[in-house]
């Protein structure tokens, strides 16, 4: 526990990436050399790569500990929470100094102490918590409480964890990323053997990965947001790129190894069971195949269609109706059938293709799908797979025009993939590199809206009012009586400096405080951008917007000139989704 707490403090103490990297490498190297530490190291990897055990003590016990342990009244503890924004950190700062006792390993802490906690009676749980806190050294407390609340984000990305482990194990990052897949799944109990498999000999680890039917780490796209005029100089002509639509579906990888097939989401969740529609497709795939693509709802037309036909592609809302369902009824399968839009092939006949150029992989993928279609036709079957159609044009300007059709086609924009590029890992910070995947999304829709409520943020925004509710006018200025109708909440898009300014404004213009929320005298207008808009019965405004965020602070605009509900609803008709 001491070593873990020390690592946590080092990772938490600053923002320098290189310092964090060094801290992790040092920690894992020390653990590698000492097999008695492997189980604890396995837990460390689990937490750092995003694993979350369920909360082992409920908030009410933690609050009781705060009040009884500190001896301060509850309202004062609540004030402290407001300033800190995190229960675990509040407790670590509030409780009296700890004495520090016997060292107990992280593995024992988790398996023998914390995980069994929920099965005990309330008083017993509280008594144990209290005793443990007294036995811990003060500087171990934050990590300890974080283990309980399960929020161990310390500003290291999964990719950084991969890098550190890869360095310690002396394998390349790609292999390490693959070994880590599924590692941080909820409710998992990591063991010494898991850590050994990460840092141990290559063959053994790889064999295990294949047995487990693990996918390849997903390659993620960066956003292209520079002006069109910069595209030619930075990217070369469009002919250097394979250009496809960007779909509004669920990114997934379909694997077939032996007789087994698996569907993995980008979040590395196994989702095969939720999409039995893909069973016939999976059966038809040859063993040793991995394809990357997008799950969508697609209602196939009656007539013949080509391998790249997207006739019958439904809006994202249809797919949403299938999310989160464990059991899929025949009715759902009939009314909302899913299909897989394939855009890459990562493995064929058991061979890893990721270093092959994009155009070679594309040709292999096209060949595979043509063949599947032909075979299916002989069986009188139709397979739920399409190849993602390409979009071509001679100039970027021409492509920009085509991109404008995306919204009407219920797509998000275009994807640009370097013809000669390999399939990478995660999201590369490319700068001017040309072998990346770019997503070139449509400009968001936007309205000018007024801030009417504010809430405090969390994490690095803790204690500061960063989350705002936005409203538009119920009618135009000419109407005598009109009111502000809330329609969206947003918290992103402001710089740290702007956040500080807004925080001061919120405090100055507060009308009333309801728990964490403050209602404000409306004074500030922002240009609020969003990806889509749909009618909604749940919201008073009658609309729901997707991914709202602040594009620009309209300090120049008085609130009277903010947009109206009619202006917002006009976007519904204009190709909103």
């Amino acid at each position, binding site marked *: 526990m001491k070593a873990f707490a020390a690592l946590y403090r080092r990772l938490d103490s*600053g923002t320098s990436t290189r310092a964090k990297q060094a801290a992790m490498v040092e920690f894992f190297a020390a653990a590698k050399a000492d097999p008695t530490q492997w189980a604890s190291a396995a837990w460390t990897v689990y937490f750092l790569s995003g694993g979350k055990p369920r909360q082992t003590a409920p908030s009410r016990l933690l609050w009781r500990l705060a009040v009884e342990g500190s001896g301060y009244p509850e309202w004062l503890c609540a004030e*402290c929470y407001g300033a800190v924004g995190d229960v675990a950190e509040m407790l670590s700062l509030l409780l009296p100094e700890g004495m520090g006792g016997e060292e107990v390993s992280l593995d024992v802490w988790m398996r023998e102490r914390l995980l069994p906690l929920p099965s005990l009676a309330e008083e017993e749980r509280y008594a144990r918590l209290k005793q443990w806190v007294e036995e811990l050294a003060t500087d171990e407390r934050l990590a300890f409480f974080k283990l309980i609340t399960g929020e161990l984000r310390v500003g290291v990305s999964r990719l950084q964890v991969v890098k550190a482990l890869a360095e310690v194990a002396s394998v390349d990052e790609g292999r390490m990323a693959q070994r880590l897949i599924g590692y941080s799944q909820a409710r998992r109990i990591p063991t010494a053997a898991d850590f050994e498999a990460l840092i141990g000999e290559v063959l053994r680890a790889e064999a295990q990965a294949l047995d487990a039917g693990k996918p390849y780490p997903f390659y993620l796209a960066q956003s292209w947001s520079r002006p069109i005029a910069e595209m030619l100089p930075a990217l070369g002509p469009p002919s250097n790129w394979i250009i496809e639509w960007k779909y509004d579906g669920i990114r997934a990888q379909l694997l077939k190894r032996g007789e087994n097939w698996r569907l993995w989401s980008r979040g590395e969740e196994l989702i095969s069971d939720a999409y039995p529609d893909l069973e016939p497709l999976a059966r038809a795939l040859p063993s040793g195949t991995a394809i990357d693509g997008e799950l969508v709802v697609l209602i196939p037309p009656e007539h013949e269609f080509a391998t790249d036909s997207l006739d019958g592609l439904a809006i994202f809302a249809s797919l949403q109706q299938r999310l989160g369902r464990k059991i899929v009824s025949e009715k759902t399968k009939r009314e909302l059938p899913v299909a897989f839009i394939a855009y890459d092939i990562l493995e064929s006949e058991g061979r890893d293709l990721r270093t092959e150029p994009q155009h070679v992989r594309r040709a292999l993928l096209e060949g595979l799908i043509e063949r599947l279609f032909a075979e299916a036709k002989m069986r009188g079957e139709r397979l739920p797979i399409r190849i993602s159609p390409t979009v071509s044009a001679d100039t970027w300007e021409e492509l920009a025009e085509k991109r404008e059709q995306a919204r009407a086609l219920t797509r998000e924009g275009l994807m640009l993939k370097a013809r000669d590029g390999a399939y990478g890992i995660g999201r590369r910070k490319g700068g001017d590199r040309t072998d990346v995947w770019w997503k070139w999304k449509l400009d968001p829709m936007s309205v000018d809206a007024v801030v009417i409520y504010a809430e405090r943020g969390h994490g*690095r925004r*803790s*204690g*500061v009012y960063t989350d705002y509710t936005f409203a538009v006018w119920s009618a135009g200025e000419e109407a005598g009586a009109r009111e502000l109708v809330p329609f969206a909440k947003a918290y992103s898009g402001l710089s740290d400096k702007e956040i*500080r300014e807004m925080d001061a404004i919120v405090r100055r213009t507060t009308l009333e405080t309801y728990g964490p929320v403050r209602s404000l005298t409306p004074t500030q207008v922002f240009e609020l951008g969003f990806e889509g808009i749909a009618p909604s019965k749940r919201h008073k405004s009658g609309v729901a917007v997707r991914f709202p965020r602040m594009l620009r602070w309209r300090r120049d605009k008085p609130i009277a000139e903010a947009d109206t509900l009619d202006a917002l609803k006009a976007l519904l008709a204009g190709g909103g989704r």
Partner: protein
Amino acid sequence: MDLIVSTDRGLYCAAGDFHIDPWRPVPRAIITHAHSDHARFGSEVYVCHRDTAPILRKRLGDVTIETATYGQILTRNGVEISFHPAGHVLGSAQVRVVSKGETWVASGDYKVESDGVSPTFEPLRCHAFITESTFGLPIYRWRPQAETFASIDAWRRENIAAGRASILFAYALGKAQRLLAHVDAELGPIVCHGAVEAINALYREAGVVLPPTRLATDPRTAIRGEHKRDFSRALIVAPPSAAASPWLKRFGDYSDALASGWMQVRGNRRRRGLDRGFALSDHADWPGLIAAIEATGAERILVTHGYTEALTRYLREKGLDARALTTAYGDDEDVGEGEAPAEGEGGAPTEPEA
């Protein structure tokens, strides 16, 4: 009527006809210390501790200043006024006011831990105590300063080993000199920003011993025979306003850190986007505030700038006659340092750019 009240120009004593740390021009201003939210421009006569005067002159120019030493009693209209150490920065003082057997003390800003640079805070018995509350929540409990200085030295050793400069942001008046007096001066040269170096000179003139410091342009930093300078072993002390400014470019590869009480909370640390944050403050922490208040034996407590509401309520629940007193402190330089919550409530700092 109370001996000292809050008016639109500042804390005012009618019996003696003077203001304490006024935020608007007045005829006679008693000044607790030279931070600019407590010592503002425009008053006719300033009265302060002897060591505050040179700093005041540097900041306000050629103004009329009367000085006193700690404990020396000045009498005005039968009201006795005296300065007593507040332990905040050089020359900082609590102001004790006695009239007709009634004693009031205005704390200004203070800390109770001795910092080895300014005279240690002296508890004064009084009937009414006007206290600051910058860090008036129990989560603010400073580690012993030796521990914090040790972690600063450790950070610096890491940087030296990696061949990069260490840039430490600290408020130019007080915090910077406290750091200079305690960091390990043997590790390498200490470079100070001009704003810090100017205050260093005043501290040295007042007899405070500081290690040798130099400006970034000092020729001793130059590498022989080259146009470049070598800062890889240097500690650079600069005001927080220099963060992210072009002035930093000259230092090449560096790690940056901020020394401020607000760094106690992770969110504040991370928002700053600096490599490190060291929780070191010239204000009293919660235990310090409570101990100082108890030591006065005062039955009336008036709470100014900081977590005013929280501290007031806590004291009232403990049976003291505590009230919030509205002032305009804590919204100037201290905020530049990131050391003041929004006015009159238990929020986080608003931290405008300094």
